[in-house]
């Protein structure tokens, strides 16, 4: 049984060499030495099948095939083990101190006034308002006269308003955009006008010569004071949070009638009274009211047919309340230690 002995010897020799193979290239060599199609030791041995007597052939064939399968599977197994070892070795050498910080790209910050303006714009856009724009250097007529602010009104004093000439001012409110819009188009009107306004105050913790407003104006048939209430209530619930309540109380502006100061419930103390709300539970946010008929007279609207409401809110104030800013100069100093918080 020379053939079968030979097979046994090949098997034993393979076992010895396999034990010595330490890397994947020697495994590949082993594979070639035993199983290569042309010169593999087992391949050549198996070719001797035809030389064997017929009665020995089945046993030889069976043994040879079993050996071949064993060599293949043991090589594959060994290779997988080696690959695993190599991978872990590589993982070990490649390991990082992952607790080091990531390479963070520098990302810029938006100004809080821009953030608040965009948030308020989005609330009104969703309600179907159109955004309008107007000049900051404005006529005295649009800023005062057309808004029913008479020539003797104290807000026209040089101590309160910046004048370029008798006829031109730095607008003290965004309300002149109301006039520009109404002079340009008939009702229905539903607009907001964000923009920069100026009042002659020195910059201190609670005043600024320049600040930002959003004016709102709705004129249509059947617009009521209740619509104003509902609109501002929605604004405040969306901007400050669903729990925020809105309160209108009577006030006076020459261009609205009835007029209202608009308060929101103080979220700092949940309306129990604190420093922010001056212990009233309410924070004054803006002025609003039903458009005064004298304003319609100025722009030629039919007061019998149309009614409407207007409001003017200070974006800076909304931003300060929402983000807890207690000092106005922070908004204009452009200190990165402040701005990078947004």
């Amino acid at each position, binding site marked *: 049984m020379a053939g079968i002995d030979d097979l046994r010897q090949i098997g034993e020799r393979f076992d010895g060499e396999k034990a010595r193979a330490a890397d994947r290239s020697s495994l590949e060599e082993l594979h070639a030495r035993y199983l290569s199609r042309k010169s593999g030791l087992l391949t050549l041995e198996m070719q001797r099948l035809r030389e064997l007597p017929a009665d020995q052939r089945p046993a030889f064939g069976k043994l040879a095939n079993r050996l071949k399968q064993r060599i293949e599977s043991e090589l594959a197994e060994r290779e997988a083990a080696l690959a695993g070892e190599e991978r872990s070795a590589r993982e070990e050498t490649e390991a990082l101190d992952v607790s080091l910080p990531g390479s963070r790209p520098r990302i810029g910050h938006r100004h809080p006034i821009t953030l608040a303006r965009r948030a308020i714009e989005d609330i009104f856009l969703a309600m179907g308002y*159109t955004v309008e724009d107007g000049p900051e250097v404005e006529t005295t007529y649009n800023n005062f006269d057309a808004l029913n602010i008479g020539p003797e009104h104290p807000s026209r004093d040089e*101590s309160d308003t910046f004048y370029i000439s008798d006829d031109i001012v730095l607008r003290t409110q965004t309300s002149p955009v109301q006039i520009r819009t109404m002079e340009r188009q008939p009702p229905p009107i539903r607009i907001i006008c964000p923009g920069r306004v100026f009042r*002659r105050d020195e910059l201190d913790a609670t005043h*600024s010569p320049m600040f930002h407003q959003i004016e709102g104006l709705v004129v249509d048939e059947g617009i009521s004071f209740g619509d104003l209430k509902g609109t501002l209530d929605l604004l405040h619930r969306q901007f400050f949070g669903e729990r925020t309540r809105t309160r209108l109380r009577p006030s006076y502006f020459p261009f609205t009638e009835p007029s209202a100061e608009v308060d929101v419930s103080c979220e700092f103390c949940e309306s129990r009274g604190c420093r922010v709300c001056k212990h009233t539970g309410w924070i004054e946010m803006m002025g609003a009211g039903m458009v005064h008929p004298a304003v319609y007279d100025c722009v030629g609207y039919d007061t019998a047919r149309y009614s409407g409401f207007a409001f003017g809110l200070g974006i800076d104030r909304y931003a300060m309340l929402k983000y807890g800013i207690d000092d106005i100069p922070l908004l204009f100093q452009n200190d990165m230690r402040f701005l990078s918080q947004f």
Partner: protein
Amino acid sequence: MKISIQWLRDFLDLPEAPRAVGERLTLAGLAVDGVARAGSDTVLELDVTANRGDCLSHIGVARELSAIYDVDIRSPEAAAAEGSAAMDDVFAIAIEDAGLCRRYCGRYISGVRVGPSPEWLVRRLEAVGIRSVNNVADATNYVLMELGHPLHAFDADTLDGSRIVVRRAAAGETLRTIDGDERRLDDTTLVIADARRAVALAGIMGGLDTEISDRTTNVLLESAWFDPVSVRKTAKRIRLGTEASYRFERGADVAMAATALERAAGLIIELAGGVALRGVIDVYPAPIEPDRIALRRGRIAEHLGAAVPDAEVERVFRRLGFEPRVSADGWTVRTPSHRHDIAREEDLIEEIARHHGYERFPATLPVWSGQGRQLPSHAGETHVRDTLAGLGYTETCSIAFGNRDTQAAFAPGVEPVEIRNPLSEDAPILRTSLVPSVLGSIQWNLNRGLRDVALYEIAKVYPTSGEKRRLVMAATGAADAPRIHQSTVETDFFRLKGEVEALLSRFDLVLAESTDALPPYLHPGRSVRLGAVASVGELHAEWESRFKFRQKICVAEIDIEHVLERGLRAIATAPIPKYPAVRRDLSLLVARRTPYRDVVEAVHRAGIAELTDVFPFDRLERGPFSASFYSLAVTLVFQSGERTLTDSEVQGFAERVLAELRKIGIELRS
């Protein structure tokens, strides 16, 4: 305006505690800013709006409370004991300018003893912030605070000719007022005069010579109505505001003039003794008629969003002193003489709304169809802001005023808008350039220990030709957050130039580069214009030292108004190429005076449709070549939409490019 709770209780019964009263008043439109104890009394601090001069008194506030609580008001006693001698036998009053003085009432009280006021009166006045002077002056101040009508008491014996004339001052006339100041008058000033001279500034302050003194025995008591505009103009011109002028400016109650006179006369006699001469001189040539305004019932619901019961409407009006008379579709309402702010139907509706309660009208939303729109520039502006945030730039906001010289240096030749009454002579114009502001912001941060700063601002500049929006970007220090893994890149000219190019690349713009007409505040050798819309560069050494910068500052100024007008390019996608692109690198020797721009232009002159990109990847200033050249390596990218380009085709393209380059003296580096 300080209001004493005890004083209010003279007029009506308050069913609630002071703090609650304050809240009710606030919700009715008289904002109570503070509630403070004052001994046994409580004082409310009221912020009375400019239209409600009638509430600058205890009776006025009591009237509001009578509507709030629906209770009656007790009127104060207003009667003076009279003697038998008639006033008009000893004194005369005449109004010369009936436009500025509609009514003048006078009382003559003889035999008073001027002295200190009793304790109760001193305390009451103190509670509302008035210092006691003497019993006669205190009586007039008491009535001022109680009824809101300013009065003046003269020492009658100092009035020359025993007469009062209300007239305009003569030019050059002077008057020493009670505060001791010599006032120069002119013919716009309404004065109270005796036979010889001005003795008081009408509605503002009395004269020193005729004031009540310890020696006074006879008093001429004035209660008048002066024109609000005239009082305001005079008070403003001479910079003198008083309790009296404050009320006349807002419109006093012409009917109250007579009542207040009687109330004060009675009080003076009670406190200082004496007797009133018989009769009042009441010069009131043209009585002011109350307005009658129609109010339609349906209009209330339309305007406010809910109907108010008729009984409630009438109740509110009556409590506030209005007289409603039922008409076909509502009421005709007679307005009281103390309400100058009621002129139209809407004004009446507001009274109903205030006292019915703003909180009682439903909160609704307007019903409409249609949709809203953002500004046309919105999409572009959003893209700019998003991109800038991604590039690491933080938005700033600066006050829009500027210094004349600085602005002129940064925006030469631009005429600024001058403010007539600036807050500071150092910043009297509106900005014509945003650059000084952003440099100031960089400086602020560097001075506070920061080193790596990138800022931008989008704001208007205001040349006289019209306001325009601009974008300014400024960066200094490392372009990225510090990291230990690799060294940081410092912001430099090319970094900022690339950022501006990236920022503008989505807009419908042609950005031809140029080094002509560069802004003077930029380094002349390190700045460039991109089309007509942007200039980019490093800050000029002169401004570096003026701002005391010790590190490189890069600045870009962009005409964002124009960029946003052009808008974002419409997106029209091209198919992804099916055939591979082929890159060909050329290593060139370029004369030192030839800028890269000339190289690219020459490459494009070859007119190869398949050339899809050209970019530099290496530049050597010195090497094994003549010092008058630099070496430049560029990559050309070729691609065809129809087929894979062959080597020989690409070689042919490269040859054609080289031929163009040779025309401007550029050779392949051997």
